[in-house]
């Protein structure tokens, strides 16, 4: 707990250590790139790239979160067969590698996709997905699942007793909204928007491909060009610093808006049994759930359908690559979960909460290209890069996933401390015992969910491995890319299906705890 003057508690020390390691990773790699640089100023086209990047990230974040609210609300108050499976399935787009997901989206919304085929058949004009709206649509597809889960957790965290009291007081839906739902949203939404905004800051392939051309140039693309074709390390480092500044500003802004809901403790009766069952509200909820499910699941179904014939053509290299990916994911998950728990504990209960919270968000805004290049420059004098492909990938995946874990754990942990912290302290429950008796049991659901997220993200991530991979270090996403580069699109689709299925299975397994919790 809070420490006496001059003495730092282990909680604070742990948080500071993890935060320092993250800062070192983000800024150390940036410095390594800068040290090798000569010159390198930002040009006029970079200003345009920064404007576009911020605009698309802001719109994507707001749209993803606002559209997720009615869907999360509907999922929170309705019970139907297959609800849990649906909730899990709706999380899948977030876990799919970018290129696979883009091809799936295009099979639905593309020029010859299902939507346009239907429109033309009905004699209606076709719609084009390419442009600013296409970028937002794709980011919505990727990130709404995350927003959905974060908000759904918020609803489920409102103690059932509060709803009972509301019902006994004869609250109209508007009153429930004002007294229970709005404070919860005020607590949860800024964090969800922050994560999505920051994620979209480093978007590159999605923004370019769906943006329809160089108008959709993001900062990350400019970094790519600077590093690879122009070999302008100074400009790459400067652009990467811009991403960090944007990210840090977003964190500070969201901290200003976020406010603890402070519902107080409940009796853990789980789920919400109360609710008005007016026909209109049932209709609204059904519409929200069906639309969202169709939007999120159809493109993935397309990916699966496209991948089935390719399964027959899978090269044997798929299996060792899969094993490697799973190994990397297991290690990344262990590292990320441990670091995130230490970090979150210190944000909740230790000192320097603000700076630690900000530093924990930085990896999200890191350019994976600058990160990889910096790491390469740092380790290069000591060890050959190809020996480090997998360890570096584990570490970087863990660091990149850590912000998600922290954002998911933080509101839950804060609530625990708010509700039971004083009682626990008064009975002398501290240290390990406090974690085991109080925190862990109440944190199990978000822990399972976030571990599933880290593992699946790590399996699907290309990240820095491409910079380090030798002959042997091939992971499954890299293999998908190599198959595509060799015209073998069917085999690539098959391998992508394997990748998506495995990511999803791992996520499902780890998240099961969370789903159990979501059950009444």
């Amino acid at each position, binding site marked *: 707990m809070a420490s006496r003057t001059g003495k730092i508690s282990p909680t604070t020390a742990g948080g500071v250590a993890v935060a320092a390691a993250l800062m070192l990773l983000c800024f150390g790699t940036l410095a390594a790139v800068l040290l*090798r640089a000569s010159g390198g100023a930002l040009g006029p*086209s970079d200003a*345009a790239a920064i404007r576009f990047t911020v605009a698309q990230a802001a719109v994507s974040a707001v749209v993803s979160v606002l559209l997720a609210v009615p869907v999360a609300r509907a999922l929170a108050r309705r019970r139907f067969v297959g609800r849990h499976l649906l909730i899990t399935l709706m999380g899948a787009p977030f876990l799919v590698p970018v*290129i696979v997901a*883009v*091809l799936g989206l*295009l*099979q639905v919304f*593309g*020029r*010859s996709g299902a939507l346009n085929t239907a429109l033309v058949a009905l004699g209606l004009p076709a719609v084009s997905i*390419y442009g600013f709206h296409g970028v937002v649509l794709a980011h919505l597809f990727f990130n709404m699942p995350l927003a959905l889960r974060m908000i759904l957790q918020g609803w489920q965290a409102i103690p059932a007793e509060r709803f009972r009291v509301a019902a006994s007081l004869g609250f109209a839906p508007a009153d429930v909204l004002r007294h229970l739902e709005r404070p919860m949203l005020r607590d949860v939404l800024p964090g969800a928007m922050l994560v999505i905004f920051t994620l979209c800051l480093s978007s*590159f*392939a999605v923004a*370019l*491909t*769906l*943006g*329809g*051309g*160089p*108008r959709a*140039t993001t900062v990350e*693309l400019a970094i*790519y*060009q600077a*590093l*690879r*074709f122009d*070999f302008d390390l100074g400009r790459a480092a400067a652009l990467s610093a811009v991403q960090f500044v944007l990210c840090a500003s977003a964190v500070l802004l969201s901290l200003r808006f976020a406010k603890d809901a402070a519902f107080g403790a409940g009796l853990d009766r789980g789920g919400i049994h109360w609710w008005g069952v007016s026909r209109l509200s049932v209709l609204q909820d059904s519409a929200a759930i069906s639309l969202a499910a169709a939007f999120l699941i159809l493109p993935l179904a397309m990916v699966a359908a496209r991948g089935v014939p390719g399964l027959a053509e899978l*090269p044997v*290299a798929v299996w060792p690559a899969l094993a490697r990916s799973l190994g990397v994911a297991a290690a990344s998950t262990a590292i990320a979960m441990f670091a995130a728990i230490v970090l979150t504990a210190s944000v909740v209960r230790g000192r320097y909460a603000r700076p630690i919270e900000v530093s924990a968000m930085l990896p999200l805004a890191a350019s994976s290209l600058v990160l990889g*290049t910096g790491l*390469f*420059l740092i380790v*290069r*004098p000591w060890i*050959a*890069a*190809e020996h480090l492909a997998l360890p570096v990938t584990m570490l970087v995946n863990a660091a990149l996933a850590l912000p998600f874990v922290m954002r998911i754990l933080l509101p839950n942990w804060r609530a625990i401390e708010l509700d039971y912290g004083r009682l626990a302290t008064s009975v002398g429950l501290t240290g390990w015992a406090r974690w085991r008796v109080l925190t862990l049991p109440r944190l199990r659901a978000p822990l399972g969910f976030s571990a599933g997220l880290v593992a699946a993200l790590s399996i699907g991530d290309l990240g820095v491995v*491409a*910079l380090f*991979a*030798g*002959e042997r270090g091939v992971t499954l996403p*890299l293999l998908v*890319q*190599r*198959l*595509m*580069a*060799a*015209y*073998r*699109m069917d085999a*690539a689709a098959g391998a992508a299906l394997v990748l998506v299925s495995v990511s999803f299975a791992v996520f499902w397994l780890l998240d099961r705890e969370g789903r159990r919790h979501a059950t009444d």
Partner: protein
Amino acid sequence: MKSSLFAAGFLCFASLASAETPVLNVLTYDSFVAEWGPGPAVETAFEATCACDLRFTAAGDGAALLARVRLEGAASDVDVVLGLDTNLTAAATASGLFAPHGLTPANDLPVDYNDPLFLPFDWGYFAFVYDKTKLATPPTSFEALAASDISILIQDPRASTPGLGLVMWVKAAYGDRSADIWAGLADNIVTVTPGWSEAYGMFLAGEAEMVLSYTTSPAYHLIAEDDDSKAAAAFDEGHYLQIEVAGKLAGSDQPALADQFLAFMGSDAFQAVIPQTNWMYPAVTPAAGLPEGFGTLITPVKNLLFPAEKAEAIRVQGTLEWQAALAK
């Protein structure tokens, strides 16, 4: 105790192994080393003659290779870089990292290509590929394409070597008029992708009628998939060449072995693997000739290629022009 014994034994073994067989490190692009790429066959064939261990390291694409050796500088333990193209060789030369190969092998390139630092191993023409069953009359020039409402997919010259090749192609064909050509093409372009794979994948999924690729692309579909529906459109302006080259680093600690590898590149054992693994033309036509399907490919009326020393300035200017014309 046990572990230190083990470590000592391991070190001993490692140093013995390295004393016996010299290692040649070749840095190349990703798709070269894939199990279905040229890498495995080349490795087997070269190791049969060199009494050495040939080790491939993969790094993205051609542009990534150059960035990587420039990052490493003189301290690199790479001996040979395989897979730069003619749009990158000027920058590679200027880096001062490469050493002359001193060889003068004959090649079957459609243009004269002699570079003291770099030797070609394969080449191809950029072209727009289409599906004959869906597009009956393909355009025969950039101007015809711009005037039509045919949809195309291209790659970003800032991120992709074929994308850059297209910028160079338009520049070589139209010179000062290239900005107008891009303005005319703007409404044909469905979208711009970061790499070749995305564009080609989207083309096969039906997102556009044509995609920027190579004249040799239809050979893949014909030979590997028994599908003759794909073809490359022949343009009257001629087609821009991509010549892929290799060079040895001045800092190589195996210069003799590196020379041996560069010479081996021109041999039948290397060249015969290229057409059906890299889907490009081999720099030296193999003794057994090209695979059958290659006979059906178009032969451009004119070869376009900027000399390396001009390419760098044209790359920068052409890319800016491209960006300005399409960002409107």
